């Protein structure tokens, strides 16, 4: 077994050397020479970010439960470590055994956000693996990508051999069995990739050609192999309650962003907020039972010793068994001094009361996400939250002792006007007024409201996927308009990252032609793009120029409904027809009810699981 050794002087000189040490609690130890399949799970960001990712925890144990497979972890080395490695020609290595990535059968990246793409290239380069898939040979590992951004795989199509579309628990066993069988029968890597065409959920870019019109729009995305499907549908777990969940988790030994027992209560979302990609791509809505979750909590607590349990989902208040689960967890864990962390809660009487009961809770800020400043614009984006709900929620929170509120908004939303922007100010000021309605005795401290505005990025598989994003200059103007409007000293308004959001706008709806631009950006030194110390907007602009790519074509152009989109050969269940209907409703500021109130025939019913089944039972008919 090859083992990479980092010299002492290097470890002593870099920041947070423990990032590279491994040996966490519950780290899986196998003999790499005994494993028939070696899988390198790569998170294209630094250790502290990657170790907070729930997907990594699930897949790590899912893959390692197979006797024939050893899955090890790799994170992007920070700049100082990378410099030292390059100077000494030390290749990128896995944490578990210190093995160079070239020794693995699979090098798999999880793509959680678009601005990690240069890190993907950088990690391949640091491993001595050729970047372009056609430059690699039999000895090179299979380069694989999964995660949310894989649903528009095209910008990385030049660099990746295969994309896994969907939830990891569904197809990895079939995938690895196929690989093993192919290897044992003497098949080549090329033959393996071809055999993959028969499996659901895998996109192998080499078997698809893209042609373009004169004006730059895509003409067609065509399979060039008889077995390649015209449309590849994602895979989703059918019975989420019974699907694989690890009974232990990796416990980092240093501080990471999220460091607690994490329970996934449901997948998908009933709301259908029109800007939100996650809500659509993770449909259908599938819940776990409260008993199952409590058992998982017990097992994970025993294996980790964590001080906090967190419930995650896209909208935890919508979990039908939320009161039951919260109660059971509090009863069981309160005496063990384990706290509950509940992000993504709707602020109502129930949740405020729950926050009170959670032991040891310091009154941190309460968070709301109105997203838009006026009811009209909230209706356009289908964010079902009225001003009265926001104000009464704040009232409850203030009465309960909270004096800090955080509000999330977006600027640059479709149909946005100055009135909507100033609505952000109006709403925020009404909240301050609400606080001062309290009797003086209940107001021991001044209230502190932070309104935070991020820049809207249109995403694939949402009703806004045809919209033009605002330019960075326009974002700046809008933010300044809002900022000028604030006069109350209790309010802090912040906006940020207009340039980064613009780049995200290019990548999110990019096609294969972006590959060259990403390569050139990386070559000119871009990496860790979502970190301010490494973000170089000018280098990106130069890379686009040199690649002959116009970023505005991707970000700032309004598409017609009949245009071929770069991800049209991928299906997440939700249909284009539905998205078009939703976009038209948005234009008229009409809201769409949530999945529990009515089935809007988004197309997720084709998976025949979760919440959709209740509509089948009611005889809702099938319009999709």
């Amino acid at each position, binding site marked *: 077994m090859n083992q990479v050794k980092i010299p*002492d*002087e290097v*470890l*002593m*000189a870099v920041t*947070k*050397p*423990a990032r590279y*040490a*491994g*040996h*966490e*609690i519950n780290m899986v130890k196998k003999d790499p020479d005994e494993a028939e399949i070696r899988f390198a799970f790569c998170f294209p960001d630094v250790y502290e970010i990657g170790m907070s990712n729930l997907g990594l925890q699930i897949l790590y144990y899912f893959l390692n439960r197979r006797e024939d497979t050893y899955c090890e972890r790799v994170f992007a080395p920070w700049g100082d470590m990378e410099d030292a490695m390059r100077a000494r020609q030390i290749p990128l290595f896995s944490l578990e055994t210190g093995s160079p990535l070239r020794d693995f059968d699979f090098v798999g990246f999880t793509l959680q956000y678009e601005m990690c793409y240069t890190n993907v290239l950088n990690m391949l380069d640091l491993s001595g693996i050729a970047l372009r898939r056609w430059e690699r040979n039999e000895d090179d590992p299979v380069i694989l990508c999964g995660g949310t951004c894989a649903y528009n795989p095209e910008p990385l199509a030049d660099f990746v051999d295969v994309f896994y579309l969907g939830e990891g628990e569904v197809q990895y066993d079939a995938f690895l069995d196929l690989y093993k069988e192919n290897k044992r029968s003497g098949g080549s890597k090329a033959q393996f990739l071809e055999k993959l065409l028969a499996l659901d959920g895998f996109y192998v870019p080499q078997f698809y050609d893209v042609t373009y019109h004169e004006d730059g729009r895509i003409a067609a995305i065509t399979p060039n192999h008889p077995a390649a499907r015209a449309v590849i549908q994602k895979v989703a777990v059918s019975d989420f309650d019974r699907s694989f969940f690890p009974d232990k988790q990796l*416990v980092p*030994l*240093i*501080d990471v962003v999220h460091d607690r027992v994490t329970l996934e209560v449901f997948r998908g979302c009933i709301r259908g907020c029109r800007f939100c990609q996650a809500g659509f791509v993770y449909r259908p809505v599938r819940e776990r039972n409260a008993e199952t979750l409590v058992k998982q909590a017990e097992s994970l*607590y*025993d*294996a*980790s*010793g*964590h*001080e906090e349990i967190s419930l995650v989902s896209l909208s935890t208040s919508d979990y039908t068994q939320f009161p039951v689960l919260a109660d059971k967890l509090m009863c069981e864990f309160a005496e*063990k*001094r384990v706290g509950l962390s509940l992000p993504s809660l709707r602020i109502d009487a129930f949740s405020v009361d729950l926050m009170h009961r959670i032991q*040891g809770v*310091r009154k941190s800020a309460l968070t709301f996400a109105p997203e838009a400043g006026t009811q009209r614009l909230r209706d356009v984006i289908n964010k079902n939250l009225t001003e009265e709900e926001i104000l009464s929620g704040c009232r409850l929170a203030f009465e309960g002792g909270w004096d800090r509120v955080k509000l999330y908004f977006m600027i640059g939303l479709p149909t946005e006007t100055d009135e909507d922007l100033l609505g952000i100010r109006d709403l925020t000021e009404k909240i301050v007024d609400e606080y001062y309605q309290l009797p003086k005795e209940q107001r021991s401290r001044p209230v502190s409201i932070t309104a935070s505005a991020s820049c809207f990025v249109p995403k694939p598989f949402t009703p806004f996927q045809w919209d033009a994003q605002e330019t960075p200059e326009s974002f700046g103007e809008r933010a300044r308009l809002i900022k000028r409007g604030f006069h109350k000293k209790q309010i802090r308004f912040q906006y940020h990252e207009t340039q980064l959001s613009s780049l995200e706008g290019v990548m999110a709806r990019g096609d294969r032609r972006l590959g060259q631009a990403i390569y050139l950006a990386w070559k000119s030194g871009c990496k860790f793009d979502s970190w301010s110390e490494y973000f170089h907007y000018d280098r990106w602009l130069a890379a686009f120029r040199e690649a002959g790519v116009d970023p505005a074509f991707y970000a700032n152009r309004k598409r017609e409904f009949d245009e071929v989109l770069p991800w049209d050969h991928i299906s997440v269940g939700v249909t284009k027809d539905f998205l078009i209907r939703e976009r038209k409703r948005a234009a008229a500021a009409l809201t769409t009810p949530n999945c529990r109130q009515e089935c809007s025939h988004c197309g997720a019913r084709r998976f025949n699981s979760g919440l959709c089944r209740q509509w089948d039972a009611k005889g809702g008919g099938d319009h999709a």
Partner: protein
Amino acid sequence: MPEKYRLRFTKEEPVRFLGHLDMMRLLQRSARRARLPLAYSEGFNPHPLLFLSAPLPLGMTSGGEYADMELSETIPAGEILERLLAVLPEGVRLLAVTRLRPRVASVMADVSSARYTLLFPNETVPELVAARLPAFLAQETILAEKKTKRNLAMTDIRPDIWEIRPVPGGLEMLLAAGPERSLKASLALAALCVFAETSVDWNACRCCRENLYRRQDGILLPLDEGNVAEEF
């Protein structure tokens, strides 16, 4: 009945880059995994009553780390040892668990000195240094720049050097440690190198803090021995 115990453990290669707070968290979580009933402080933000002794510089290994742990019930020390041994991560070896007598000095306050072994990265330096060692130690004062609360100041470090002797490949040092006086091993080495007119890259050396000592009736004892132990 709340009970206090002193743990003695090592900090070895796999965990040598963990900081003080990391080690506290590691012990707390290990105690939970071992189902030990940790006692908590009162007040708004209760925390487990688990305290580590003198912080170790990052990168240094240790043969004798100490932590005081208070439990809300009395559990035999041997059982605590067994339960923790089963859950501690690689690189942290639990050597002893001692039930403490009431009202002993805390594990941070009771420290008086520390023993280090230092291994040099190459061969030539040990000879140079060993040759000059007796003369170095014969000095009445040794001035070195030491960090005080506000800035650097020239301080006499001779009283903080209790012993230095050569060992194969390096040195063994017994230096002052604890709340009143303490001397960093890196500073002691730096002063010695200046005197011997040579230089060593501290980052290339391997240093291990072998043990921490307390003073009882003029003799040095490891932190969990002597009249702090319940059985004494």
